[in-house]
């Protein structure tokens, strides 16, 4: 409704989406990227003419290019899509996925939709041996988080998209166009973006609100019923923000301090565990009283389970994006591209956005949505306002050595 509520050239959102796995050199360009974005925002009409990324240097140049398989798309009308759970529209009776059904009817391409992407590391571990051995993963398209896209590009595990098959790619929101993890958007197109925040089940907390990470990690009322995400950047980002540190510019000591805070909660028996996307089940049932959660998940689960609620902590929260990528040796690349193209039509994407409640990367979605459901247009999770975005933070890009070091510290927490 209010045009100010979602400024497509919002500098905060733009800065946030720049995040990725890049070299230290390009990490230092971050500040320049932000001011460039701010400049574009001031001009008011950026995006019509996509400027090359302000950051020339990136660490995401592939070491080798991904091998392409012979494309069977024309003979086999199939596409195999792996996605996260709760990440697509579902019909009232929960038996079908309307936008997918419509795609199948329209194109005659059968979509094998599998919700087997529970967490980036786990999924990567699953497909890496196949990709490394030069084998087909059995998947034609999946949805990876920004930093994982950077890794997949660098290792030559994903293919460049053929934009001739994706004419609707022109509908990409300006904010998402030049991202550091995939300069020039050659390999990926965003599916959703959103926040990591605190989700809780009011029935299980005894009606109590959970408003900060400190409360989550220490409140005796939640003892043994708290889960954190195995996604390091989200869990650690939230804890660092709580401790007054910015995940965009933290030091080793800041990271360690956040690890210590979680370790303390763990030793005190506060934590039930670390989860990927499967936390949604426990949270709805009330076995998990409160947890680190992804904004859209909680918002869409709330439709079925009204006692759920989410808090965007006052200390700040993290922002991420998940992106379509096509793996090496995918057998139905063209069909996958047709699928992406289909979703980049705002008339289609609005149905997904209305259900998943994440930030839509397809321009025109808001206008299409507001016509259907004026109330949703005011949802600050889906169309974040300046205020909401101002507190959204980005985990800074890590060098390979930092990645190894921090992952080791964090995994010592999550695996033992």
């Amino acid at each position, binding site marked *: 409704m209010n045009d100010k509520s979602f400024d497509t050239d919002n500098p905060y959102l733009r800065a946030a989406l720049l995040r990725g796995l890049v070299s230290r050199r390009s990490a230092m360009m971050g500040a320049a990227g932000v001011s460039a974005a701010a400049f574009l925002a001031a001009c008011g009409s950026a995006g019509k003419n996509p400027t090359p990324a302000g950051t020339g240097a990136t660490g995401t140049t592939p070491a080798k290019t991904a091998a392409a398989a012979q494309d069977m798309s024309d003979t086999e009308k199939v596409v195999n899509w792996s996605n996260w759970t709760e990440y697509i529209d579902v019909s009232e009776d929960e038996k079908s996925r309307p936008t997918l059904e419509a795609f199948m009817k329209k194109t005659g391409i059968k979509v094998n939709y599998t919700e087997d992407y529970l*967490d980036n*590391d*786990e999924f*990567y*571990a*699953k497909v*890496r041996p196949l990709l490394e051995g030069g084998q087909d993963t059995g998947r034609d398209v999946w949805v990876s988080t920004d930093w994982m896209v950077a*890794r997949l590009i*660098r*290792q030559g595990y994903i293919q460049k998209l053929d934009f001739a098959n994706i004419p609707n790619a022109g509908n990409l929101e300006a904010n998402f166009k030049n991202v550091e993890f995939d300069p020039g958007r050659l390999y990926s197109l965003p599916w959703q973006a959103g926040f990591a925040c605190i989700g809780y089940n009011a029935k*299980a907390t005894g009606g109590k609100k959970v408003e900060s990470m400190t409360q989550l990690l220490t409140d005796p009322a939640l*003892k*043994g*019923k708290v889960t954190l995400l*195995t996604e390091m950047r989200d869990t650690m980002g939230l804890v660092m923000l709580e401790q007054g540190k910015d995940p965009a510019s933290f030091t080793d000591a800041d990271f360690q301090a956040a690890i210590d805070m979680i370790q303390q909660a*763990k030793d005190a*028996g506060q*934590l*039930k*565990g*670390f989860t990927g996307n499967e936390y949604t089940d426990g949270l709805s*049932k*009330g*076995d998990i009283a409160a947890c680190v959660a992804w904004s859209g998940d909680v918002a869409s689960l709330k439709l079925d389970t009204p006692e759920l609620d989410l808090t965007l902590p006052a200390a700040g929260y993290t922002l991420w994006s998940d992106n379509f990528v096509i793996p090496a040796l995918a057998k139905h690349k063209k069909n996958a591209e047709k699928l992406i193209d289909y979703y980049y039509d705002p008339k289609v994407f609005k149905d997904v956005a209305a259900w998943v409640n994440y930030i839509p990367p397809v321009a025109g979605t808001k206008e299409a949505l507001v016509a259907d459901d004026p109330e949703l247009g005011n949802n600050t999770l889906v169309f974040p306002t300046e205020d909401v975005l101002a507190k959204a933070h980005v985990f800074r890009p890590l060098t*390979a050595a930092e990645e*190894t070091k921090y*992952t*080791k510290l964090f*995994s*010592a927490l*999550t*695996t*033992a």
Partner: protein
Amino acid sequence: MAETAVLSTGSAVAPSHRRRTWVPYALLLPGLLWLVVFFVLPMLTLGSQSLQEGNVDDGYAFTGNVAIYAEALGRYWPQMLRSLLYAGVATLLALLLGYPLAYFIAQKAGRWKNIVLVLVIAPFFTSFLIRTLAWRTILSDDWFVTQWARTLRVTDLLQWVGLTANDSLLSSKFAVIMGLTYNFLPFMILPLYASLERLDPRLLEAAGDLYASPRETFRRVTWPLSLPGVVAGTLLTFIPAAGDFINARLLGNTQTTMIGSVIDSQFLRVLDYPLAAALSFILLIVIVTMVAVYVRKAGTEELL
């Protein structure tokens, strides 16, 4: 894997008095091949993998880094000890629950014998994972089990004993040990049944004729004769339970992590292959040592 190792030492002793015939060796061949392909080779690979260094991006290379074993033990000894403890408790519980049932099936069930046996095996018709997930539903907070346990103050008792951390049953030591006991109970019952079934009732009558009390009869006749079943059952329960990674993950919390889940995460999430391989080897050595000592103590080598 460990039980294969124990069993294979037995099969290596082949009679040699008919030297001319090659048939026994030919018959051994498929089994030996199986062992080489599915046990020896993976073990060697795992051994070499544990001594590699590197990272996921650049790949791993063999460096003979023996220090990884010290690092693995130093970091994960609590999970290792915990696994042995939980597996031990679960084995004991399975024995206490399984022995009377096996005895009943073998000696008293009569025409119901086959039906009860099928009931014992029935859970195997669904997958291990599904059965454990079912326990998650059964023990979840909004189900009647937890509600009743709260009403009857069982949850308070469990919390007081330290088996649970709060007023839930799920995500606790209690749930993990219970899951282990449940999942491996049939492995205890079946060998017990096999040895109790061979128990000659006339021996029990004879004990009675010699004025032995029922308790004395059990202690001096039934129990010693069922020992082969007890040894086999405890091994078949303890060994997989100690390496289990499903129960702790699905039914536990961050303080009930067992070594199996650590190995699983290191292999499949963190991708620290050398550490995972070293942990697997340590677990293998610990279990083989414990089993060897146990079998020797039980004095039943010839029964295996």
